[in-house]
């Protein structure tokens, strides 16, 4: 028997898990709320640490999902747990009886407008990491006009309890270093500053990227969070921070300020979670069965999680998580479904 598996979310996690489960012989149905696949990856230009084009990675992921039943612009209307499966009504009118459900709902970028003191949406030359990627992709953004002095603000909507975001978003430090290098390549005369609290360059080759940014690109790293931004008469920006290494407040006039918006639990993922009354933790991300031993199983039987639905992850971590979820789903289905009569007992024993 070919089990149905519903995967919610067509970003990297959903695509990778779809591909893996399809290869294992399952009948995979992938739904995506947007009109195209890829999630945030589709909006990014190049990826850290080695600058691979995001398009290349994404098209590889999409290619490998051949055979998966894909519905874009589709969300969940209703979802009910039956005795051993989930009955899912989709917004496109189709109903799916699914033996396992994988939630790969991803993340939302922190809305930088909420950090009122940075003036995103108020000062003309304050942009976000996503805006800068869009600029790298399209080559046009009227806010970016041959800047001579450029600042990057790490931890915007990360490690900020006042904004309701205690956790580290993991990807922003490396992204900031990558973007600082790219912006220096685009504007070689520019002075580039990164304002950080800690540089969390934990992954393989990330430290190399940091060294390269200092050594080859002359990027200045200032330990201290930007506290306030304001606008001069000529549209340039004044940023205030403390250089906490020097223990002195500082100010700098900049032509462009890039806010490294962090990861927040996705609103559409939360909507799905509400339908299923899924448990979320204090940080807003979905709770898992066991963070160390069973990080892809939710608290509900037959319901799995992958990618940033369970907290900030880098792309390689997301892909590894998706593969792990595929293995977990396979184990669940092969163990539980051959003996449907003892299903309830088996679930009790094994979930």
């Amino acid at each position: 028997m070919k089990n149905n598996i519903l995967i919610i979310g067509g970003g990297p996690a959903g695509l990778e898990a779809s591909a893996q489960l399809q290869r294992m012989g399952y009948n995979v149905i992938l739904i995506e709320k947007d009109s195209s696949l890829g999630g945030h990856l589709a909006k990014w230009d190049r990826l850290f640490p080695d600058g691979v084009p995001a398009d290349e990675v994404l098209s590889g992921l999409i290619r490998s999902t051949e055979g998966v039943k894909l519905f874009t612009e589709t969300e969940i209307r209703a979802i009910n747990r039956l005795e051993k499966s989930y009955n899912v009504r989709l917004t496109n009118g189709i109903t799916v009886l699914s033996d396992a459900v994988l939630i790969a709902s991803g993340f939302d970028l922190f809305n930088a407008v909420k950090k009122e003191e940075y003036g995103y949406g108020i000062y003309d030359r304050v942009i976000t990491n996503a805006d800068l990627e869009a600029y790298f992709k399209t080559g046009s953004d009227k806010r970016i006009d041959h800047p001579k002095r450029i600042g990057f603000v790490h931890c915007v909507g990360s490690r900020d309890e006042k904004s309701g975001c205690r956790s580290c978003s993991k990807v922003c430090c490396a992204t900031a270093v990558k973007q600082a290098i790219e912006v220096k390549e685009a504007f070689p005369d520019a002075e580039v500053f990164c304002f950080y609290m800690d540089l969390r360059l934990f992954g393989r080759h990330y430290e190399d990227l940091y060294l390269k940014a200092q050594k080859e690109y002359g990027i200045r790293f200032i330990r201290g969070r930007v506290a306030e931004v304001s606008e001069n008469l000529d549209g340039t920006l004044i940023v205030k921070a403390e250089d906490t290494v020097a223990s002195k407040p500082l100010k700098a006039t900049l032509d462009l300020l890039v806010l490294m918006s962090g990861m927040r639990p996705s609103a559409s993922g939360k909507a799905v979670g509400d339908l299923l009354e899924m448990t979320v933790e204090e940080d807003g991300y979905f709770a898992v069965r066991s963070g160390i031993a069973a990080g892809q199983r939710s608290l509900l039987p037959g319901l799995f999680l992958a990618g940033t639905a369970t907290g900030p992850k880098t792309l390689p971590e997301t892909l590894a998580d998706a593969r792990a979820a595929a293995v977990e789903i396979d184990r669940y289905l092969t163990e539980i479904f051959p003996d449907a009569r003892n299903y309830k007992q088996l679930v009790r024993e094994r979930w």
Partner: protein
Amino acid sequence: MIYEGKQKIWSEYQKEIPDDHYFYVRSCIRQSFFPASEATFLDITRNVLGKDIFETEHHTTCGGIAYHSDTIPQETVMTIIARQFALMAKHGYENYVCSCITSFGLYCETMETWREYPELEAKIHENLWKSCKLEFAKPKFLVHASDLIYKYRNMIAAQAVRKLVNVHTGEPLKVVEHIGCHYSKMFPSKGVGGAEYPYVLVGMIEAWGGEIVDYPERRHCCGFGFRQYFIKGNRGYSLSNTHKKFESMEPFKPDLIITNCPGCPYFLDRWQYVIAESTGKTYGQDGHGIPALTYEEVAGLVMGYDPWDLGLQTHQVGVEPLLDKMGVEYDPAKKYLGKNGKDLGSPSPCACLK
């Protein structure tokens, strides 16, 4: 600057301001710094707009200056405040409006403290009864007097005889707004427009035809800083903070500064004199300063009050260039005459500040 971005933030910080029936409490220092401001507030709200604003001579200081100078226990301050609130209730009011920002901040802080520590509130009930034989009460709505003028800004505009416009050029006057720190920095949700981009004074200026100047050090403290000013040895810090603001606003060439705090217009006014006389630097046109007025004084000007009745002669920085720009008629000979026509005496001339 993207105006729509500010509008979005303003829409998120709206507080409920009842339309009428208020118990009014004065500020300790405004009555001597800007003697006509509170009188103008009462005249506009009561006599022009027909509102019920009650005040009693039995109210006292809120204790804020002593509190911020660290010379009074918190429980004592809370009991003083409880007495003010009890007077409000005794006279049948539940809406409380105060003239002072220090008081407003302290009232907000005290009510928050009582909310978080009910046992402390219970103790204040007892203190109040023991010391004054008054029943404890809390206001249903607590607003600052500038909130109320903000609420009435369009009614004032409808009755205005002139706008904040340069009558010679037809251009709107460039106005710097300065909010007292304790209006919303401690509790952003208690201020109209929040703390980063407060709207309370911006709303008045827009309604009365002026143009708002947003300069880099807009959010910076005026420099009062309580103990920075009180002790002469620290006064240089107070002066330097004010100096920082003026250096930042100078390129924008403001015509006027509007404020909503007792201390701010005082320091933004007097320190211009000290900066001018000790360094030679002035910030207005041709050796003049930039007039720093209270919102009541600005309201009075657009409503056609006589500038000397508004007490504008008590400002160190001469207001005449502003009056000329606005086309306000005034009699220079009457500048230093009191209400009864008696000569008040005029200040000795400044060497640098015109």
